[in-house]
């Protein structure tokens, strides 16, 4: 299959280019930019007039709900949502049922994902057996089966000794450890940021120190063990400051933030909007502003969709009983563009947060457009507005705080391995 993408604006954050040029693709790879290689006869031409051509997006946190939670979403529905959102690589946390703690499960998931021929799926393995926080998993075996990193998803890992051993063992094989910083005892009954809104609504709170205490523990153990650490979905201004310092100290630590937390705060809960029941909780406006700044100045490396499809029934409950999470795959690009526009960030810089930088965190060679690179591409119209509605989302989860909002930036084509896997209607 030979494809000629013409008249597009190529924005390649990895190679720091932003220019108008054609792209020529053959045998799944980019073969030339600008001039057609000699004798190139395209089977397919894509007119990218008015479109941005960027590397396929890379998402660090997408729950595909398989195995175990197929009633909420299936691999088919969520992979379709991913490519509709321009995402060509995604990593999924291990909190499936059963958790991804055995090579067989990982191989099966990889096989299922591959057979769909859509986005690349990079499973994150469980750090401990059954995510129980007691015994280590066979990390080396899991790596051989395809796990790119190891995490504890949102399950508590309060035992510092187990955490230290897990980091030491991971470091032995140079595997990276992804952790979300939340102290279990300080957050067990909480459902919202402990602050003004939770106090007014009578919702049990999760204090900021639930994040900073856990983060402090993780950073100390990272120093102790030398493990490569990635902090998932930071939520507080204090947390951002701690990471800034850790990076300044030269600690091998990276960090991401959920797209929801870039735009929303506790105020958006209003009167018990269960779409705003998220993990970690939406914190204050001050925290949100610090997250936006942290992303701009590079303390926060990447933005993830934190995709959690939840069925309607699980959201039609009183706030505290409603299941946490929001659908996200199809909103990642427009919400990052919105942040970039509001923060006056050049497009290439903004796109690096959802392409080359998360690719480096997973450890995959992706997120660039150069001859020889796999042709994983996203073509989007940066000026096309669309309304977030249940019917406009391909994900089985229609739950998002952004329902009813008009967003700018719409994916028109997604290519994986040189094949057009998604083409927008109209």
């Amino acid at each position, binding site marked *: 299959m030979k494809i000629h993408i013409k008249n597009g604006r190529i924005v390649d954050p990895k190679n720091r280019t932003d220019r108008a040029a054609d792209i020529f693709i053959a045998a799944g790879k980019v073969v030339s930019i600008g001039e057609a290689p000699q004798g190139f006869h395209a089977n397919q031409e894509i007119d990218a007039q008015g479109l941005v051509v960027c590397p396929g997006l890379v998402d660090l946190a997408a729950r595909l709900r398989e195995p175990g939670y197929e009633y909420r979403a299936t691999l088919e529905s969520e992979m379709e949502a991913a490519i509709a959102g321009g995402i060509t690589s995604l990593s999924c946390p291990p909190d499936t049922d059963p958790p991804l703690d055995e090579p067989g499960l990982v191989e099966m998931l990889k096989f299922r994902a591959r057979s769909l021929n859509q986005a690349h799926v990079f499973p994150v393995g469980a750090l401990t057996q059954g995510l129980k926080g007691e015994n280590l998993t066979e990390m080396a075996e899991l790596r051989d089966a395809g796990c790119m990193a190891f995490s504890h998803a949102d399950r508590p890992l309060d035992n510092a000794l187990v955490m230290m051993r897990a980091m030491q063992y991971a470091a032995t094989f140079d595997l990276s450890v992804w952790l979300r910083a939340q102290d279990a005892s300080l957050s067990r009954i909480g459902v919202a940021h*402990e*602050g*003004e809104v*939770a*106090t*007014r*609504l*009578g*919702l*049990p*709170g999760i*204090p900021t120190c639930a994040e900073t205490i856990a983060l402090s523990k993780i950073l100390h153990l990272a120093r102790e063990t030398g493990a490569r650490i990635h902090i998932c979905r930071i939520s507080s201004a204090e947390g951002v400051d701690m990471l800034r310092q850790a990076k300044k100290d030269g600690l091998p630590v990276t960090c991401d933030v959920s797209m929801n937390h870039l735009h929303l705060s506790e105020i958006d809960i*209003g*009167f*018990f909007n269960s779409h705003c029941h998220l993990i970690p909780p939406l914190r204050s406006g001050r925290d949100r502003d610090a997250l936006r700044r942290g992303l701009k100045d590079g303390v926060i490396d990447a933005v993830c969709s934190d995709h959690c499809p939840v069925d309607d*029934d699980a959201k*039609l*409950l*009183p*706030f*505290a*009983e409603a299941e946490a999470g929001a659908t996200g795959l199809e909103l990642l690009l427009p919400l990052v563009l919105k942040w970039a526009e509001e923060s006056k960030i050049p497009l290439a810089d903004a796109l690096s947060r959802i392409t080359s930088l998360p690719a480096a965190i997973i450890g995959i060679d992706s997120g660039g457009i150069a001859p020889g690179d796999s042709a994983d591409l996203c073509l989007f119209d940066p000026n096309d507005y669309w309304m977030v509605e249940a019917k406009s989302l391909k994900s089985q989860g229609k739950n998002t705080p952004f329902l009813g909002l008009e967003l700018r930036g719409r994916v028109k084509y997604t290519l994986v391995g040189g094949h057009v896997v998604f083409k927008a209607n109209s």
Partner: protein
Amino acid sequence: MQRQINKNGELQHLLTIEGLPPSMLHHILDTAESFVSVTEREVKKVPLLRGKAIFNLFFEPSTRTRTTFEIAAKRLSADVINLNISASSQSKGETLLDTVNNLSAMHADMFIVRHAMSGAAHLIADHVAPEIHVINAGDGRHAHPTQALLDMYTIRHFKRHFHELKVAIVGDIMHSRVARSQIHALTTLGVPEVRVIAPKTLLPKGVEHLGVHPYHDLAKGLKDVDVLLMLRLQNERMQGALLPSAQEYFKYYGLTPEKLALAKPDAIVMHPGPMNRGIEIDSAVADGPQSVILPQVTFGIAVRMAVMSILAGS
């Protein structure tokens, strides 16, 4: 949030005091005043809600609140159906909204809802047919608006005006829906100084943003107050490292005649009930001359009649 006030500016539901204008609160209190005389007549009934079906939907056990709503509805000539849900459908796995939809199909006109989760009444109000009214009779830690209204009625009855009062709310503010509704009602009605008095473990973070002054010392907090609103201390607060013991709590935060003497000589003492004598309040105070706890209960019926008639009366 304005979902409790309809397009014509009328009360559609009563979910929380927050956001209601002072004129609406006074309207409810004035209406209640007109019903107090009804409750003192020999034939204690008016036909305002004749033929209306009112469902008492209590997902949490309650004796006093449920009974006063039932009496109030009957005095307005409504048909009252009491449902003790915790014992039936919830245990069979039916969701909150399924229960409500089933009852709506039986042509309910009004739901009076108590639920252990904050926001439950809002959720129901969002999903019922437009002709059905919802009264929040207590949702989790969030709100208990009719209790706050009857407290305001009692204060107005004994103190006449709100705008020169010092009011202290004493006890477990953190877990109390009553306290939250009282705070909104008092600040809306123009009480210049509202204090909350509790150990730090029982005060929610940022409570001062609700417009109150926090105190941790009962003696200091009670100085010169006109109205004392005592809160019930749940027994389970002795677990979870919130308080060391009931004895210590009573010693430092229990209302005794000596502590009460620090308030204004004509201060009144209120309590939403049921009381824990010897834990948050001394019997000598509860049964003493400054206690208006029993009038509160009587006024509670008139206030609930007022709310129901304003919502569903034609």
